[in-house]
């Protein structure tokens, strides 16, 4: 496969993972050269495509109703879609994996500390709450229905002796 790759000075990557809120689709492209990295975040809403440029590698994005949370390698940001502003999030040691909108500007995510959290973005600041109930070692994929109820599905235990893996499902009703 490798010899057929298009070789360019710049490598352009696109995120093909689905990132979407109830109202918009968000994706990003990354252009890497030997000296520079440039990521362009696009959001498509009401048949309009807007973009933001970051001089870093984007690791995850979480589209919400009024905001988009963007995590780069070194920082986390909140884009206010209506005001067209970008603010850095401070006081947060966060690595967002599987960030999925629940309702409005509230989302659930899995952190590298092995816990899940629910974050809500508000004009006045950010509220963070802990999620409990997952067994140790469980790696979830969050699926959310249109009411904001969450299913966490994933693998937990690998048993070398039986060559079997355990699949678990969890449910959280949106209040």
């Amino acid at each position: 496969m490798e010899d057929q790759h298009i070789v360019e000075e710049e490598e352009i990557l696109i995120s093909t993972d689905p990132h979407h809120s109830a109202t918009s689709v968000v994706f990003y492209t990354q252009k890497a050269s030997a000296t520079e990295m440039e990521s362009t975040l696009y959001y498509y809403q009401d048949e309009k495509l807007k973009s933001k440029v970051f001089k870093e590698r984007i690791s995850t994005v979480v589209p919400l109703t009024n905001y988009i949370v963007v995590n780069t390698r070194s920082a986390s940001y909140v884009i206010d879609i209506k005001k067209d502003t970008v603010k850095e999030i401070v006081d947060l040691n966060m690595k967002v994996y599987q960030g999925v909108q629940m309702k409005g500007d509230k989302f659930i995510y899995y952190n590298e500390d092995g816990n899940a959290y629910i974050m809500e973005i508000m004009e006045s600041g950010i509220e963070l709450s802990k999620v409990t109930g997952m067994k140790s070692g469980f790696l979830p994929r969050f699926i959310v229905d249109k009411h904001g109820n969450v299913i966490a599905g994933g693998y937990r235990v690998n048993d070398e002796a039986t060559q079997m893996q355990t699949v678990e499902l969890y449910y959280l009703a949106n209040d």
Partner: protein
Amino acid sequence: MVKSKIALFVLFLVMLTGCSKAEDESIMETDPMKVIMTEKVYELQELEFHDFNQIPYSSFIMFHGITDNVLYFAYGESDNATIYSTNALYGYDIETKKVTMLKDIQNKFRVWDFVLCDNGDMLYSKVELGDSESDPFHFEIIKESNGKETVLDEGSLFNHLNGPAFSRAGENIFYLLQEVEMDASTNTANAQIDSLNEITKDGTAVSVWSS
């Protein structure tokens, strides 16, 4: 008359200035957003999933979406070291805990993603290995309606882990692609095309953005 022409010209300049504002122009606020840890704790409840609770190492389950208390997932097995093939697509009713098979897949291909439309149609992205290991992966976007399949889009991918995945925004369904344009005579790639595509209500795929 002259005054009105000048006024129109000034208005035109103002409009032009407004229109030329870059779409990606954003203001980096100096005040950062602060995080407050609340005392509220959300507790997940474990669900029974007996039929698929234990699966072999060589198998996989992928969860794809939930509608009206039915969780959609795919079950498959490893063909070789690089690609898994999907055996079947299922729906799991989280109220009754009953699993229903939605599609049995006999041929060896991977369903990278699938989504159920509001009218009951199924959209899925299919990824297949070529004849040799050095061939790119072939993908298709397929609509299945009342058992009849229609290919809405197809092309080539270099990385089967970048298969087309669906996103929903309101009633609209989108998918992202990073496909390669092949030179048929040499069977080599001559371009890479990134695109965001929308499945329209009449069931066709249209590009809304491409690189």
